[in-house]
């Protein structure tokens, strides 16, 4: 019988398998259009973060809003160790380090699938579209497995 520690690890593996299977299935069914689910999935996650995790969106600067979302991910949930936002004109980039989903995201990328169910991506897209009325387009999703670092970029207009 597995120890409690092994059960925790197996549970994390199971969650990763569910995410991988769900994303692969939707990608096989919809192709690139699977990215259209990003905002809708993010809306539900955003509402949950606002209701139960104390996320308060105010102001109009996407950098401030994304920084607050990142703070909750790192300080309150512990899903990653670092979350950095940079904004250059209409381009917003997020670098996430040591995310617990890094391996599954890298596996998806290597299978030719854009990891459209990344929580940072989904919540950021939903926050920008729903709360700030901004349109955003995903321009980059890259995963550096060796350094456990992901970069996600949007163009805002």
């Amino acid at each position, binding site marked *: 019988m597995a120890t409690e520690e092994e059960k925790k690890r197996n549970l994390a593996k199971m969650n990763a398998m569910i995410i991988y299977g769900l994303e692969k299935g939707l990608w096989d069914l919809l192709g690139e*259009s699977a*990215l259209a689910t990003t*905002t809708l999935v993010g809306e539900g996650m955003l509402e949950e973060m606002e209701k139960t995790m104390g996320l308060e969106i105010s102001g109009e600067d996407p950098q401030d809003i994304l920084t607050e979302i990142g703070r909750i991910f790192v300080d309150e949930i512990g899903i990653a160790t670092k979350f950095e936002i940079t904004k250059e004109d209409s381009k917003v980039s997020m670098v996430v380090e040591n995310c617990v989903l890094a391996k599954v995201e890298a596996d998806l990328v290597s299978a030719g699938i854009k990891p459209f169910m990344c929580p940072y991506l989904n919540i950021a897209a939903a926050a920008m579209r729903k709360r700030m009325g901004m349109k955003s387009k995903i321009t980059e999703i890259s995963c550096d497995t060796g350094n456990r670092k992901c970069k996600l970029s949007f163009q805002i207009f």
Partner: protein
Amino acid sequence: MAGMTEKIEKMLQDMMADAPDIEGAALIGSDGLIIAANLPIKSQDPNRIGASAAALLGLGKRTIEALQKGDFSELSLTGTDGSLYLYSAGPTGILGILAKKGANVGMINMLARDISEKISQMLE
């Protein structure tokens, strides 16, 4: 992008002026982003409409591929009060046309195919 959006919005408006059976039109990206739109349904969330259209396009593309019927080009959905026509506009765009019940489909197809071809060239 802003300049192109304005040009496409003008093309959609002109098309609607030529065909009174058309109630609304939009250009949507394959990621669900509404690039340009002239839609009558103000109460609906445009993000949801964009995502639905993109999902329909994705399913259409995959189904046509699986059936080995070449490249996806068009899709139509008909309800009791009207229809939605979706036209592929290049590799990343979808032209959506909302038509009245009993609309002249031949006229809509002619105008929409012409515009989707022009948009496709603009998006390249």
